[in-house]
């Protein structure tokens, strides 16, 4: 059944970088003791990776897990796999003080691609991109809304926002990536 649609239906724009809505992604908020053995097992089972260190994202194929705060992770799986993953996490963490919440439908995911992808985000986020490490997830604001992003490829960033402001975020990305507005033209 394909009743589920992402906020913007996968719209994209080609400027000096390509900005696109990436479509639905399974996302699960997990809160608990990140250092516990149960958490390590639960995350391993859900994503195949270790529990990420502070501000890190661990990626394994189409699954990933990001450190969101000292007691919160964001587990990412294919959209169709989210409900099973929620059930598995709940089971693995049973007996521990924890919270697992499916937030797959509360988010919008974007990609910014191109050699100058960072320049799009430099216009919107008060972040020092020169010091953004590989595998780091940065939670910040994009203009007036909360956002998180990480480098998801050699010339690609993935950015996550709330679903309700997807249109606003796409508007920001489109305007900021327009040709001719490169921050450091070659």
């Amino acid at each position: 059944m394909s009743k589920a649609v992402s906020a913007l239906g996968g719209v994209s724009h080609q400027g000096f970088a390509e900005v696109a809505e990436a479509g639905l992604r399974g996302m699960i908020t997990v809160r608990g003791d990140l250092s516990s053995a149960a958490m390590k097992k639960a995350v391993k089972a859900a994503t195949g990776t270790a529990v990420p260190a502070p501000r890190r994202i661990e990626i394994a194929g189409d699954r990933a897990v990001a450190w969101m705060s000292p007691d919160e992770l964001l587990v990412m799986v294919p959209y169709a796999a989210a409900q099973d993953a929620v059930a598995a996490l709940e089971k693995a963490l049973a007996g521990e003080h924890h919270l697992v919440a499916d937030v797959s439908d509360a988010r919008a995911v974007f990609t910014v691609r191109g050699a100058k992808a960072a320049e799009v985000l430099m216009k919107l986020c008060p972040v020092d991109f020169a010091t953004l490490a590989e595998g780091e997830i940065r939670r910040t604001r994009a203009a007036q809304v909360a956002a998180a992003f990480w480098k998801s490829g050699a010339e690609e960033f993935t950015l996550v926002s709330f679903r309700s402001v997807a249109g606003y975020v796409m508007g920001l990305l489109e305007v900021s990536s327009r040709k001719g507005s490169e921050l450091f033209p070659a």
Partner: protein
Amino acid sequence: MLTLECPCCGVKAEETELQAGGEAHLKRYGPGSTDEEFDGYMFSRKNPKGVHFERWRHAYGCGKWFLAARCTATLEVFGTYPAQSKEPPADLQAKIRAKRPNWEGYK
């Protein structure tokens, strides 16, 4: 515009990523307290020209509250520390005292 390092995630956040929460280390007075105690808790704030302890939330980041020691006159930041602190850490207090010999202490 201030920059404060969030002790919960290590990000050096600028003020637009933060939410200010007023004076830190207040003691809550609930039912059973005197009018004076409640008034002090609810309304009386120090507002010093100088060393001040404040609550900040890394609102656009990890979402955690933390505490900061700052000079309200020069905006010098002496340090940040977790919100789960009954009082400013001893080393931070020592650092402030070294920089501000006339500081009368956090109480």
